């Protein structure tokens, strides 16, 4: 509220970007180019209905079903289509798998391309020039800043989404999770692990 009401009781205008968005939105609605309730629906869909939980469910299933993982890697978009997870920013999707030899990480150096149809909207840092410019130049340092230390003998592959192909990382399954259900495993698939900036969340029930 600091931005709205000052301590002397006067109100401050909202930030410039918020005002600009409001102005554009009002114009579109008033000129009859966009229906307000359709706009609300778009916001609701990306806030509540399409998001990283969708991707996490896919990854968890890939961990327990080898044939499903093979299909994901072979034909990502066909497999997602069967699950109803295609659409805007998700017409062409390639899955890349982390292994003992390879760690994958995804970026869009040109803008902020991201698999919306499977992971929802990108996090703010994914769109930041700092991440976009540095992760191709010094991926290990950037990953370390996320708390992700990749052993030096492991190859890092950075995928720069310059075209219409969207990339999703299949993180390595955490140890000690053999007895978990797909739903329990999905809880360990954090959003960043599907971008490649973090590992899947360690399982707390695992023997130390």
């Amino acid at each position, binding site marked *: 509220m600091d931005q709205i009401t000052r301590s002397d009781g006067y109100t401050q205008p909202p930030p410039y970007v918020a005002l600009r968005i409001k102005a554009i939105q009002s114009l579109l609605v008033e000129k*009859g180019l966009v229906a307000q309730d359709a706009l609300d629906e778009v916001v609701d869909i990306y806030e509540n209905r399409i998001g990283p939980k969708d991707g996490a469910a896919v990854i968890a299933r890939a961990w327990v079903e080898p044939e499903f993982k093979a299909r994901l890697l072979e034909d990502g978009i066909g497999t997602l289509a069967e699950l109803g997870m295609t659409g805007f920013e998700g*017409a062409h999707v390639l899955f890349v798998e982390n292994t003992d030899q390879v760690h994958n990480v995804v970026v869009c150096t040109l803008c902020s391309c991201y698999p919306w149809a499977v992971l929802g909207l990108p996090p703010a840092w994914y769109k930041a020039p700092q991440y976009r410019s540095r992760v191709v*130049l010094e*991926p290990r340092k950037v990953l370390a800043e996320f708390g992700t230390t990749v052993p030096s003998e492991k190859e890092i592959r950075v995928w*720069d989404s*310059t075209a219409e*192909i969207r990339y999703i990382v299949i993180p390595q399954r955490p140890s000690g999770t053999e007895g978990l259900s797909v739903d329990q495993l999905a809880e360990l698939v954090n959003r960043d692990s599907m971008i490649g900036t973090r590992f899947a969340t360690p399982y707390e029930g695992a023997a130390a």
Partner: protein
Amino acid sequence: MRLLQANEVYDAIRTPTNFTREETEPPRFTVGQEVVVRNLNPRGHTRLPRYAKGRVGVIERHHGCFVFPDTMAHGKGPHPQHLYNVRFTLTELFGDHDGNAADTVYIDMWESYLDPVTS
């Protein structure tokens, strides 16, 4: 113009745009082939990242034929081209650096961004 209604939004969002087009010419490059990125500096939209210009990479994958954004963005038509994924080493892209020599960057590139490496 018919307005998109609220009850049509979800289906619209779930309907993918197909950016692929039928191949009318065979691809110029094959998987495993060495290519060099052209030093193109078009006035306007491009999907060619500056850091890859002039660098040598290897064709990792042929994606198929895709609409060309460099013309599409300016209303000059789709002009579809073969699209490839090209693998570069960090050393090739950035020279001496304190990273790992085995690390790589994979970039999607349209055919007109690339030339074959001639020995």
